[in-house]
């Protein structure tokens, strides 16, 4: 395991910049998640670290050694790809043994066998060691892929949306398992995804990537409660943050220069209209998602969506009084204005 440092890393394809001026230090044993939509430069960042792409500028340092000019085999990183993660012509056992038998390592057969069996146990695939890798289910495949990364004990694990092709249930299971493995092994891990839940649940720190630039870096809590700008605020939270203009919903004190107010469920108080609370909005309809309800509230022709307690007793058509409570304020440049 080792510290990995990216400094001013840039890569363009033709005229389009895939990654620009990326500065990021991943501490030894840290789990960092880069979160960004498709095309944000997540895969390119990982490929630059692995040595599959040459940066146009900047450098990659792994464990104190500058590796920018080295080949992938000389970097001691492990990569779990988004797709095609296993060698289809090999069995599960041979897939796991493949990195250990490489010319870069060439471990004796007994040691290979011991390591493969140990890791197979860790990722819970020991009962399928003799299967062809193409015969596995999606979840098993990704477990083997993670195992193949683990088997070598590399300086850093790079994972490119390893769970994105799985269904929701499996994704949730593997998310927990990956976090468990990572804390057991104490590995340094850079994980990229477009899934905010993966980022929020697994990361020690999240980096928000947009258009090839790192917009914000911080703990999941930090990024959620103090997003640097509108873009970051919109990436996190479900239902998505409501963006309204100042004055639409009553609010105690709005800082000067506020152009947009961001209001998540916890920023909005909703009350049934009564004598003391004059109605300023109406419940348009309620979406029942089973474990939670989404309230769609119409305010002055605009609509906001909030999470609601299933026992709240609201019905579609109810007149309600709503009020903001310490929401997020954004200026004309979309950056957040911190409250007085």
């Amino acid at each position, binding site marked *: 395991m080792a510290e990995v440092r990216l400094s001013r890393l840039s890569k363009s394809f033709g005229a389009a910049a895939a990654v620009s001026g990326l500065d990021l230090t991943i501490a030894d044993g840290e789990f960092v998640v880069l979160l960004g939509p498709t095309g944000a430069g997540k895969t390119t960042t990982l490929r630059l670290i692995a040595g599959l792409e040459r940066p146009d500028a900047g450098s990659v340092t792994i464990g104190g050694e500058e590796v920018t000019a080295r080949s992938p085999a000389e970097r001691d990183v*492990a990569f779990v790809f988004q797709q095609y993660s296993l060698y289809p*012509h090999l069995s599960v056992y041979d897939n796991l043994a493949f990195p250990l038998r*490489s010319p870069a390592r060439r471990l004796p057969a007994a040691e290979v066998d011991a390591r493969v069996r140990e890791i197979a146990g860790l990722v819970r695939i020991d009962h399928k060691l003799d299967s062809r890798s193409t015969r596995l289910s999606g979840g098993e495949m990704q477990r083997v892929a993670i195992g193949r990364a683990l088997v*070598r004990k590399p300086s850093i694990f790079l994972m490119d949306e390893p769970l994105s092709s799985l269904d929701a249930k499996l994704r949730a299971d593997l998310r927990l398992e990956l976090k468990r493995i990572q804390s057991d092994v104490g590995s340094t891990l850079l994980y990229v995804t477009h899934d905010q839940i993966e980022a929020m649940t697994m990361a020690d720190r999240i980096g928000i990537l947009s258009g090839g630039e790192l917009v914000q870096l911080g703990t999941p809590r930090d990024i959620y409660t103090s997003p640097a700008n509108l873009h970051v605020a919109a990436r996190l939270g479900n239902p998505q943050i409501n963006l309204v203009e100042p004055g639409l919903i009553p609010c105690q004190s709005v800082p000067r220069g506020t152009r947009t107010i961001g209001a998540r469920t916890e920023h909005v108080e909703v009350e049934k209209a009564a004598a003391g609370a004059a109605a300023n909005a109406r419940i348009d309809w309620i979406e029942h998602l089973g474990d939670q309800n989404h309230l769609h509230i119409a305010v002055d022709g605009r609509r906001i969506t909030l999470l609601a307690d299933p026992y709240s007793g609201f019905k579609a058509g109810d007149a309600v009084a709503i009020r903001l409570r310490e929401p997020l304020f954004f200026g004309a440049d979309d950056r957040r204005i911190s409250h007085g």
Partner: protein
Amino acid sequence: MSAAAHSVVEPGLTSKRVAGAIVILYAVITMVPLFWIFATSFKTPPDSIAYPPKILFEPSIEGYCNLFTTRTRQTAEYIASLPPATSFCDETTRKRNMVIAGQSNFLPRFVNSLIIAFGSTFCAVFLGTLAAYGFSRFKVPLADDLLFFILSTRMMPPIAVAIPIYLMYRELGLSDTALGMILLYTAVNVSLAVWLLKGFIDEIPREYEEAAMIDGYTRMGAFFKVVLPQATTGIAATAIFCLIFAWNEYAFAALLTSGTAQTAPPFIPTIIGEGGQDWPAVAAGTTIFLVPILVFTILLRKQLLRGITFGAVRK
């Protein structure tokens, strides 16, 4: 109700039967000449030219005897003075007032065919795989033009350049050598190999090699450990196409080989001339000539079936 049981995708019984009948009919039509050659190879020379043609006949291996031997005509007294015949071939030959004089050239010609066809197939597929990998994975300057140039060598019949090749080969001392024929067939086949294999290699995701390189292999190592095993289907299909061309090629073989390097295709027709119209011997030569391709195709039929669908059903 009954309409629901009738799936839209699954063809009905009637159409299945019609399709089956058409396939069987086609197979029968294409198999008739092969069967006729096979049958003729086991006829006696008189049976082979009997009219109306005999469907039922007493099988004989005289054709095979004649294929592998040369015979000379002798007087009845001389034949009577010989010690008793030691083999079936001896006996049948003597019945026709001839004695076996020695081995024919069929076996060496057949071996030439094997060496030249398999040798050129190996070279074409080997070079084709490397070139296809290069075109598929690297930024080759003018790649499209080069690929078109490679394909363009197939746009005329190879025999159109027969005269220049004949003269070149005479100058270079490659006439009537196995090496010359291997080079020639390799040159003809390599363009096909590059194009076919490029298609197959394009379909193998790069991620596998990249994963192997990250796992500690060199690009060469990744090529052998990861790309080649997944390209076997394409390589087998390509090899069959190359082999069939090289094995069956007649025109260049007739033009450029006459002695030591002669292949079976130009040799077989010459059997007709030796001592009357010996159709059973010709048929026997043709039958044996078919065997290697048959064996090779049967051995590789699984890869071939998957390969010929060109990725349509590959997964």
